[in-house]
């Protein structure tokens, strides 16, 4: 719908909140060490939406886990506001691909979301409101007392997003969050994540294998090289106007240009090439 260029893309003067320096991850031990991630350098500025794409098996998920502090890097580090991350810090939330396993099946939607809140950080009434607000933000108010297994896949992933929002993170890491839902739900969730990130003022780092998704959502797309020793091949600034729209954004010439450029890079990097 937005055809006028009201650009509110990444304010380039904004402060860096997440910084990844010289990050490497090595798997295995003596004799069969595999360097999954070779060298990643990345700066994420406040309110930016970054998408990471790369050829399949290049270690996107590994990279995200290492950044989040869920996996110890073999070299380098990631820092949130200058503090080195050794385990998931406050102010950082992660949404996993496998919503079926990241939601606790013995808890209702409300309980799952409430779990993200630190005890005693806010009063009981305030905590309750935070939970209902986050559930409302993902459009599931009517299902707040349902259990995950009573919900569809797309709805379950919405719950996971609500839970991440409830702890008011500064940065949200998303690991292929829409890979397990069908195409229609996928575009719905893409728009939902863009909306809530803008609404809650959350900076986002999203890993995906889908080039269209990356260009559609990102201010900046980070293209990775193939494994082993994955590094950043190129960063592409996407200057498409916001709010993005599934119909109009994807028909713009810049969209097609970016898409083609990234596609070519990934084909070049694919293990089958050369």
């Amino acid at each position, binding site marked *: 719908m937005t055809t006028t260029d009201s650009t509110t893309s990444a304010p380039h003067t904004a402060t860096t909140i997440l910084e990844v320096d010289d990050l490497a991850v090595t798997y295995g031990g003596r004799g069969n060490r595999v360097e999954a991630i070779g060298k990643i350098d990345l700066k994420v500025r406040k309110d930016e939406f970054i998408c990471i794409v790369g050829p399949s098996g290049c270690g996107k998920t590994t990279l995200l886990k290492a950044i989040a502090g*869920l996996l110890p890097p073999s070299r380098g580090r990631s820092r949130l506001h200058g503090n080195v991350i050794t385990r998931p810090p*406050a102010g950082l939330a992660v949404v996993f691909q496998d919503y079926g*396993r*990241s939601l*606790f*099946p*013995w808890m209702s939607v409300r309980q799952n979301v409430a779990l*993200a809140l630190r005890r005693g950080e806010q009063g009981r009434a305030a905590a309750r409101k935070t939970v209902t607000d986050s559930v409302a933000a993902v459009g599931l108010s009517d299902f707040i007392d349902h259990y995950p*297994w009573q919900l569809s896949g797309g709805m379950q992933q919405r719950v996971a997003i609500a839970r991440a929002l409830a702890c008011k993170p500064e940065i949200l890491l998303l690991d292929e969050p829409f890979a397990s839902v069908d195409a229609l739900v996928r575009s719905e969730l893409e728009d939902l994540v863009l909306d809530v990130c803008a609404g809650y003022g959350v900076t986002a780092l999203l890993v995906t294998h889908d080039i269209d998704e990356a260009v559609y959502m990102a201010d900046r797309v980070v293209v990775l090289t193939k494994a082993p020793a994955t590094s950043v091949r190129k960063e592409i600034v996407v200057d498409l106007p916001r709010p993005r729209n599934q119909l109009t954004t994807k028909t713009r010439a810049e969209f097609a240009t970016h898409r083609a450029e990234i596609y070519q890079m990934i084909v070049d990097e694919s293990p089958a090439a050369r």
Partner: protein
Amino acid sequence: MTAIRQRWLILLEAGATALIVAVVWLYTNVANGIVVVPARRILGAFREEWLFQHFVTDLLPSLERLAAGFALATLLGVGVGLLLGSFDTLYLIWQPVVNFLRSIPVVSLLPLALVVLGTDNTMKITVIAYATCWPILLNTTDGVRQLDPTLDMTARVYRITGVRRLVRVVLPAVSPRIFAGMRATLSYALLLLVVSEMIGSTSGVGFRILTSEQTYNIANMWAGILLLGIIGNVVNVLFVFAERRALRWYLRPGLSEVTV
């Protein structure tokens, strides 16, 4: 169609049960002898023994021992299982010990239990608890060790640690395995109850069965056996009921995938 089929199956089940009861009834009447006693007399003995005379003196003590032993086994199995499952070093050190101990037939330890603990309730409860804690312990240990990685990462992301993690995440995740272990041990508990009451005891259902046999009161012996069958069934029904309630999220209809 399925409703009609279901009604048929229920009818079939009831019919078969009635038939078996009738056959036993007639056979025991015809074959009346030293060991085979008419069912009518067994029921009479049952009424006298277990509904009046020995309800308080023998049945209640037996049920108490069973409940205490089983509760202790659950506490022990879950507690130690959580420890062994949570700490790799502990697991490595204790796994051979656990495997050795659980391989010893418990009945062979009864003389030892008699010497060390005497003949009172403590001995019987300890024996029941010891015998039944193993499946619960092993199931709990495995469950904790095989905790789903995504579940674990989620707990780490939201900084759920320590006791909160144990109570809100680990225990619920492992509870289906704990219940499976408990169900497997329910029949052991009954077995060990009877055996421990048959050696060095002055009360209990097992004691009554043995003394009835030794005083040639065969009808009372059969009545005791009948009672054990009833106890076993009732306990199992109660357990299944409790399990269904506790694991509603897990035993939900249409379950296709197990998350633990």
